[in-house]
């Protein structure tokens, strides 16, 4: 069951849907507008000088410790920004952290090595490091060849980085950005040299590898928060706060949706409950169930299923004659809101 179908819309809206705006992506647009507004609001608040609390992230607190240790023992610092390209959000987040780390390294006058897998990322990072040294007031310490290209082949890159770790024995390894199968190869090679390792990625399947092989790991969104956290710039902190509030909003909506769904499921019609038990009994007995014919290509959502179970036409002829009670009306309201939330959080755009 749909809230609306394209054919039921006015003609001009159907024209817009066919030529200018895909209405199936409306949920993404609403999400972007709401959460974008929240972020912009908090950036403005930060600009006006409001105090914004940000929780402690141990992985980022330890950056200074790692840099200090590298300076003390006179070994280089290795910074790897993953295997993502220049348009990868994780690589961009890693580059933001590199700017801040390079600024601190310039103060300490320690060697920095940034091997890259992508030549365009390399060019951007060269500029980033150069600017960081200039900001720190040590442009003369910047070495042209500290950011360099290795190979665009994933495993050739992993082998080369492992080789650098074993030969040059860096005191600290930063593994931040997008990683795939090479994550454990690189992290284990680094762990075997005894270096302090700070890792961070949003690639869910690689997070466990980093947690096991590295001293500190930035999990998921912490990678994106790192730039703001390290620099402590009010504008960046504002965006971080906006992000947190957006997450809180999502959590609240999810909790409310769960409550609505649960209430709707509990208060469903007893006849339907019997039907469900009967179906389950047939399934257990191995009897073939009748195949439902449907024209829709989409799978029904939980809200749809609940709605179908509580709809008057499905209940039976007696139910349609009765006047709906307050409880039924409240349940119907719950179901509608539940359906709306399912629609909004279908998140097709992110798939």
């Amino acid at each position, binding site marked *: 069951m749909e809230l609306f179908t394209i054919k039921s819309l006015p003609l001009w809206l159907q024209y817009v849907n066919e*030529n200018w705006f895909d209405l199936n992506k409306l949920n993404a*647009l609403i999400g972007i507008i709401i959460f974008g507004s929240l972020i912009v609001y908090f950036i403005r608040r930060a600009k006006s000088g409001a105090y914004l609390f940000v929780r402690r992230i141990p992985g980022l607190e330890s950056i200074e410790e790692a840099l200090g240790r590298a300076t003390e023992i006179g070994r280089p610092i290795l910074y790897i920004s993953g295997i993502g390209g220049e348009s990868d959000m994780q690589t961009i987040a890693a580059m933001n952290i590199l700017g801040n780390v390079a600024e601190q390294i310039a103060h300490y006058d320690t060697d920095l090595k940034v091997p890259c897998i992508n030549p365009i990322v390399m060019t951007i990072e060269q500029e980033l490091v150069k*600017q960081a040294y200039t900001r720190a007031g040590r442009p003369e310490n910047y070495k042209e060849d500290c950011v360099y290209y290795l190979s665009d082949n994933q495993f050739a890159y992993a082998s080369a980085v492992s080789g650098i770790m074993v030969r040059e024995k860096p005191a600290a390894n930063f593994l931040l950005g997008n990683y795939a199968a090479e994550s454990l190869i690189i992290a284990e090679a680094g762990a075997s040299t005894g270096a302090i390792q700070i890792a961070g990625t949003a690639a869910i399947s690689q997070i466990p590898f980093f947690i096991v092989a590295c001293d500190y790991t930035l999990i998921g969104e912490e990678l994106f928060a790192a730039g703001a956290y390290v620099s402590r710039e009010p504008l960046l902190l504002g965006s971080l706060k906006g992000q947190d509030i957006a997450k809180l909003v999502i959590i609240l909506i999810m909790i409310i949706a769960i409550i609505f769904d649960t209430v709707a499921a509990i208060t469903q019609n007893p006849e339907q409950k019997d039907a469900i038990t009967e179906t389950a009994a047939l399934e257990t007995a191995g009897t073939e169930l009748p195949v439902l014919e449907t024209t829709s290509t989409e799978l029904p959502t939980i809200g749809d299923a609940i709605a179908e179970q509580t709809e008057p036409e499905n209940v039976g002829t007696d139910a349609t004659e009765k006047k709906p009670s307050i409880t039924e009306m409240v349940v119907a309201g719950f179901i509608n809101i539940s359906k709306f939330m399912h629609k909004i959080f279908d998140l097709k755009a992110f798939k």
Partner: protein
Amino acid sequence: MRNYLPPIICGVCGVIMMLHFFLPENTMLYKTMMEWVTNSTIVVGVFGLFIGLASLVHNHGNRIARRSPGWGYSVITLSFTAIVALTGIISQNVGPSVVSKPLEKYNYDNRKNQDHTLITHTLFGYKDETYKTNLVAAATSDAPEMKGEEITVRKVPLFMFFYNYVIMPMGATTFSLLAFYMITATYRAMRAKSWEASLLLISSIIILIGQVPIEEIPLIGKWIMGHAQLIVYMSLILYILYAAMKQFFSRNFMTCGILTASAALIGVIWYYTPSEVDFEAMKSVILNYPNNAAKRGILIGVQLGSLATSIKILSGIEKPYMGGRG
């Protein structure tokens, strides 16, 4: 101008790309924009390739000129960069000879009636016993399907030869190291140093047993599979009681009480759990519920983080392309 123009270009391009996302996919505008983006990416990619090559030559050239430690590796790297680049330029007809023989009903790993083409390199000689090994190589090569019984000799482009027989096996070798690294990483992760680590250990053992054919272990395999509940619940209860005892001797009576109550609760859950639950079902529960919930939590955070980073870049608050912040 130098400070203002790049953020303006970035902002405008970003907004255009965002609008492109909302266009219906079958419109001409969508297709034209997609083509434009693809072409631009190719042009930038080509420039990037030259920049990368220049960096590689500069870096390794310097190491050779300064006779830095390990400069010999730089010589090898530069030599092979040149060789592989040359193989891509020269004619497609230049390359090692390959012997192809049809193998229509070859029983490869019990898969009968497979229509394979066998390829054997003349570099290593033509041998019947290398059929099986070469069959794997043949699957990755661009050999045409051959019918008939005669053996044919043909040329494989040199670049493909390097790709299939040097680059790919070397990549696979590095990838296979992952298995050993996983073992060392697992060893470190599976030490029950704390309460959380113990939970991780128990759940990972359940998943491990649920994943492997444990019933094939002689003598004890079937017993383990038949007593899944007993093993898991008893291990949990005994471990918690052990932890409670430790707390009791440390005079932390409150924690001791909580742990004992937890052990009792687990016992109650055990009593009410259906007896047909096995390791595979437990594995599915762990993977489908707590694991999935955590994954989705991370995913929501990541998406919001990406959105916030995009807004910061589009509005010029962050300018990584200009070497820093705005």
